[in-house]
């Protein structure tokens, strides 16, 4: 399932990127970027509230397929520009982290 398809299935909003990349890995939730760097799985969905420029860099370097911003958090302008430039798919939802991850897991068919 692509980021765009996940957004349609769960009512998330596409905040930047094309949304075309396939989400093929696990779901990972964390906000501290150094922990995310060490543990986020490649090709996965990363759920966080951090929508800054460094989040985009972390997603690129860990090869995350998609960022899901929970709690209604937005991307700042620099992050959106960099995300579009590097085609990092970022989705948004007003849901809290746990509920957002649960909804995504259901849509992705994860246990």
């Amino acid at each position: 399932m692509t980021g765009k398809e996940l957004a349609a299935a769960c009512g998330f909003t596409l905040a930047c990127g094309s949304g075309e990349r396939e989400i093929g890995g696990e779901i990972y939730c964390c906000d501290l970027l150094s922990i995310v760097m060490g543990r986020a799985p490649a090709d996965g969905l990363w759920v966080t509230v951090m929508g800054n420029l460094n989040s985009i860099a972390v997603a690129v370097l860990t090869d995350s397929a998609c960022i899901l911003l929970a709690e209604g958090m937005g991307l700042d302008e620099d992050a959106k520009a960099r995300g579009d430039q590097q085609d990092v798919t970022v989705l948004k939802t007003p849901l809290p982290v746990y509920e957002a991850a649960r909804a995504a897991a259901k849509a992705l068919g994860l246990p």
Partner: protein
Amino acid sequence: MKGLHYHYQVPGDDFTRAGEASGAIKAALKKLGFSPQVVRKVAIAMYEGEINLVIHGGGGEIDVDIDGEKVTMVLADHGPGIPDIQKAMEEGWSTAPDNVRSLGFGAGMGLPNMKKYSDEMTVESVVGEGTTVTMVVKLV
């Protein structure tokens, strides 16, 4: 394969540019056809080092050498140095200031992640003079 060399200057305290060098190396390795596992290891190890240069080192320099067997990254700064390297290697130990923590860094995972994602790592540091970290990721 003939050796390749890349050199980067990393400005201090500029979080908007942090990750540029690691991103460039990641793109170069991908283009050279290295496996996704090697690319990911190098990208993560180098980004953590690059962030350390920005947060702690007041900026610095990164030299990357690639040959047929390994990728070697040398990150050097002229920052305050690390008084207790063993302590700095512990997960969760951090001296990052609050403004850095608010960006999502400062979890005390930088050096531990660098060790985890490289196959060999050495840290040389002199208080008041600076720190040099050398990391090797093997290709085979």
